């Protein structure tokens, strides 16, 4: 007991409040839109709060003004009670679209995105229960596509699995996603929502690539009628890639400010004089249905 007492004394952590004055930083505008170029553009706009502010999520800042600029035309965005939306925007891959926001305090914020050309996956093969790891079955997804040569291209691959039992649809997303392929291993795959594979073509620029990946899901063996697997390959911008890469890291460290182990970390967006992301992408989808009836 003596040793135990000594050890407890040695490592007893004392935790005390610190009276540290953190001055109020300038309030800046936050803007966020990350979506397919052919969906109606929806932009989330908000403002930063002081770190000591106990108010949780305040919702979209309806007092802001926002515009999109495409082909030299400025289109105002309309607040629909949830987001600022731009109807009738007809941007195509290869076009540049700019977003301008005038915040409640008059600050001007601007961002622009170049919509990437679409990349079509020519093969997405799914092999159910291909691997057993730690008592969990993993299904294999083999993604194959041609990568255009030239500048670095960025991709995001996601998988949505819906399991349908009885007559009512029940949805269960995959709960783990992994790959041992060097391309993916090199891309710091993190299992945080949204679970997607975000990668660049740094290791295969201009060539045909085939990447094996594995996902696991909860089985409902007795009453399962159908499994629908929707895969989506997105061509994304460099800003999208950088933002979400840093976002994953941020989410990984996020609890740090509450546990004391954090290191300063900023998420890299493309909003000038603000925070957030404005990025449009192209995507192709593939759906596989397993019918057990």
């Amino acid at each position, binding site marked *: 007991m003596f*040793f*135990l007492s*000594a*050890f407890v*004394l*040695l490592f007893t*952590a*004392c*935790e*005390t*409040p*610190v009276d*540290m004055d*953190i*001055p109020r*930083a300038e309030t*800046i505008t*936050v803007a966020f839109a990350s979506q397919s170029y052919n969906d109606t553009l929806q932009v989330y706009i*908000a*403002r*930063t*709060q*002081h*770190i000591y*502010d*106990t108010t949780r*999520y*305040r919702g979209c800042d309806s007092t802001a003004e926002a515009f999109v600029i495409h082909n030299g035309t400025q289109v105002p965005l309309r607040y629909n009670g949830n987001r600022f939306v731009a109807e009738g925007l007809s941007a195509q891959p290869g076009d540049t679209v700019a977003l301008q926001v005038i915040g409640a305090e008059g600050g001007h914020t601007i961002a622009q995105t170049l919509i990437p050309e679409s990349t079509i996956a020519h093969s997405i093969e799914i092999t159910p229960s291909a*691997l*057993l*790891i*730690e*008592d969990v079955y993993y299904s294999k997804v083999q993604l194959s596509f041609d990568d255009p040569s030239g500048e670095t291209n960025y991709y995001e691959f996601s998988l949505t699995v819906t399991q349908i039992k009885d007559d009512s649809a029940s*949805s269960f*997303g995959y709960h783990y996603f992994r790959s*041992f392929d*060097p391309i993916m*291993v*090199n891309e*710091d795959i993190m299992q945080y*929502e*949204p679970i997607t594979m975000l990668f660049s073509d*740094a290791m295969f620029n201009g060539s045909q690539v085939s990447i094996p990946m594995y996902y696991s899901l909860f089985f409902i063996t007795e009453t399962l009628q159908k499994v629908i697997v929707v895969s989506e390959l997105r061509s994304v911008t460099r800003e999208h890639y950088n933002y979400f890469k*840093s976002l994953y890291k941020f*989410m990984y*460290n*996020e609890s740090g*400010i*509450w*546990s*004391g*182990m*954090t*290191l300063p*970390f*900023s*998420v890299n967006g493309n909003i000038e004089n603000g*925070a*957030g*992301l404005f990025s449009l992408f192209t995507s192709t989808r593939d759906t596989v249905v397993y019918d057990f009836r």
Partner: protein
Amino acid sequence: MISDKKNRYSVSHNLILLVFIIALLMQKGVTGQAISGFVSDSKSGERLLYAGIYLANTAKGTSTNGYGFFSITPGLPQGDPVVLVITYVGYLSDTLMLNNLMKDTLVNIRLKAGLELRPVEIISGNSSGGTSSPGMHRLTAQVIKSLPALGGETDLIKVYQLTPGVQQGHEGTSGLHVRGGSPDQNLIMLDDVPLYNINHLGGFISAFNTDAIKSSTLIKGGFPARFGGRLSSVLDVSMADGNLSKTSGNLSLGIISARFSLNGPIRKNESSYLISFRRFYFDLIAKPLAQRANSGSTVGYNFYDLNIKLSRIINTNNRVYFSLYNGDDKTLAGFREKTDDGTDFYMQTNRWGNTMAALRWNHLFSSRLFSNTILHFTRYRVNNQLESETSNGNNKYITENQLLSGIGEISLKPGTEYYINPETRIYSGIQLTYRYFRPNNYTYYVSDGNQQFQSGHNHKMLMQAFEGIIYFGGKITRPAGHTLELGGRINTFTINNRFYIIPEPRIKANFHHNKNLNSFVSFDQMSQNMHITGNNSIGMPVEYLLPATKSIPPSLMKQLSAGLEYRSGNGIIYTSELYYKHFSQLAMLKDGASLWEGRENWEALFAGNGKGRAYGAEFMATRNEGNPTGWISYTLARSERKFDEINNGLIFPDQFDVRHCINIAMMLKIDEDADLSLAWVFNSGYRLTLPVSKYYVPVEAGDYTHMNEMYIYSRRNEFKTKPYHRLDISFNFHKQKKRYLRTFTLGIINLYNQRNPNAFYFTEIENFGPNNTRYKRITLMQRSFFPFMPNVGWSIRF
């Protein structure tokens, strides 16, 4: 990246050095007979490093080198007696008279240990008080053991943290931030061999077992040319050689660890051995507790240090040494439990540590020419493993994860010292090193145990480098006592077909104004061929050891320092020193980057081409004689960094940019059987980066979207913690028994229970407002270790 301009710079410096060497050789030349030999302890035969030897008749002097050797040429008329006075810290001075010196003479001088304990030696090139060297502190094991220590475990690094110009980093850790440098910028050597990570217990204890240490020197400026490879400091630790005449030993028990050491002659006065072992106890306590809580669980942490040294005097001109150090930390946590139809097993082990072995040969070619040749191997590695096994009837699923990271080197380092006359000494040497880096090897393996299926992934990264160093220099002492030491190193480094050549000039001048007052000035250039990055301040094995490459070239540092030393009549030595350092080509991990990601292109994770500067003033008053002994020091300092990719390219203060620092160390002899020591440290607080704003952004998660809280941080290291201060105290009670000396130690760490910061975090605290209304407040919290903490220790020395 060394430009043509820098190459021209290098050539010009080499020419200056060449001229200097020629000038040395054109001194009065080799005249008269030389007296040379070794100075050692009268009882143990242990060689005494940097002992002072001077000619009483002439006030000319020299000192033993780092291996206990000296050579002096009196230059007196033939037939005149030569009187040598030999002094050493903590020993009684001795006088040696030689008559009718007709030829070169080899003498072995044995000094008797004195009664007084001198805390810190103000390094003197001339024991008559002639000259001083800037930026050096030397401690003996005796001093280190006498100061208060965590859990009774005395620590070399903790004592150096009490010297001016050295910051300790976070509470309790073994980090050395020397003159605005970071812990990775310190060359830490045991018997001339680098150790890459000296942290035990998350940095609370260093790898140096004081039972195995003879002496140590911390150099902050005025670097001798034989040292290099790091930007900010050199900590040169010498292991004891072992007693040549009789067996002796030591056994110590503290509240956290135990130590045992034994040393003695293998063949009397010819060969000796030393073996020392230290082990941390925690696993012996934690394992039974974990098993009691859950029969299948196991948890533990331990570390050990093993030091072995063998030495043999072959003849008067040759002595060989073999040094070995092995130290490991190990944590483990896991369980094995039975399920209805099988077992579940999970075990995570983390192991990290150093191994080094060195063979050293001291050879006297003549009474004036001494050589030291070292062949060494050293390596540091981190090995994290995770194993799990699930059996379910006849099915078995096995997974194994392993993360390996490490560095190792094999090096050959011959060097010579030539004593032309008492005024002139030259030295030179080469250092050839093969070094490998394994920053991040990752293995993943899964199988069913029956080869029915298996899968895995291997990510291996091995980088190999070759380093070739040539160094040379010389020291001239003028009759008035002034000295000039000029030297340099040529650092060549090859990796991946990339070749660097970097000159490192070193200049040091001492001015002897009178018997009490000396001044000095020095200029150093240092380079560092590797980058050790990670969370240095925590001290856990999360550092990444990476070589300089094409895109991350070697880091450079230039330092100019100057100072004064005044020896008062009452035995107190006052020193003050000013320094200015300029760093360039620094590398630092970018925000949020982690090498554990297993990237091939790891260089992209670094912000390179960083710059920095550090400057300050150091003041110290040391009392080496009388009772009590000790020192008081004050440091005024500033340290800044600039990276294009960090803090928006703006200059920011270093995390340990501590403006004011005061240290007091005191040792008081109460009576023959008891002494008291205390250490008080104060600094004005280190730097912090805190989130100042927050905002929310939508993050898609399958079918729904959640709002993720994000933070905007202040400028890098914009905030400052509250001042850090702490008083430690220790009483030692000695009792001489028939066969051994017993010492009982009672100490208190953090006597007045000051809560110093180790880490910060935010939390929500519920408060009550008017009318008992409740509201929540977000508050910054500080985590502290080591409250008022008594410790006891017991040891015997025989």
